[in-house]
């Protein structure tokens, strides 16, 4: 499987976005900052997993992107609900 120049640029840009989000995850002053960064990273990974399916030319990998996309939402909601407990 070869990669064309445009696809190479796309992969590089995805990695750049991933790196920025990861930096925000490490730096973020408050916990919600880090949760937002983790959520963004999970969405980027969902797109990236679909891209891996295209790279391997095999549609079975799309199921993983689907499961990841739905369950990362559940995890984010759980963390956000735990943050909300701070209201007293």
């Amino acid at each position, binding site marked *: 499987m070869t990669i064309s120049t445009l696809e190479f640029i796309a992969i590089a840009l995805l990695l750049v976005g991933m790196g920025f989000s990861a930096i925000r995850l490490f730096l973020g002053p408050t916990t919600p900052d880090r949760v937002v960064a983790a959520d963004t990273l999970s969405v980027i990974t969902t797109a990236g997993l679909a891209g891996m399916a295209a790279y*391997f030319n*095999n*549609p*079975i*990998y799309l199921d993983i992107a689907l499961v990841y996309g739905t369950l990362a939402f559940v995890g984010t909601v759980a963390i956000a609900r735990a943050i909300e407990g701070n209201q007293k």
Partner: protein
Amino acid sequence: MDILDINTILYSAAFGLMLIGIGGIVISNHLMRIIFGIVLLEAGANLLLLLSTYHEGASAPIIVDGNVPAMMADPVPQALVLTAIVIGVGILALALSLAIRVQRAYGTLDMREVRLKLEQEISAAAGIDMPSSSEKPADIGEVPVNSVVQQESGS
């Protein structure tokens, strides 16, 4: 050993995760961090087990649309890791329940304090003097439990 060899990268990830997990278990004193360390160690071990039969260029062990690939990945370690991950959830749930129980019983999750209180309870139940702890009270920092000092001064 080429740094951009894919085998090197994957094995480094597995060993790195295991090392970080062991480090978390050994160094930290907080029960929650120890549980995090256990999860990381387990993840690294799973990755290492899966990589033991990894071969670059193999395809997934699933037949799609009837065409059989030339070389397929080994399904046995995949099934083992599948089992291991699911059992890991059971371990995690049990560990978290026990952590909640420890918090209720002792009011803290710091393992040094928990250990100290446990020793006190045991010695009180046996009706003997507090045995000399393996860790000196000075090491505990700002949380010396009062009864230790009382026992020392009283005896």
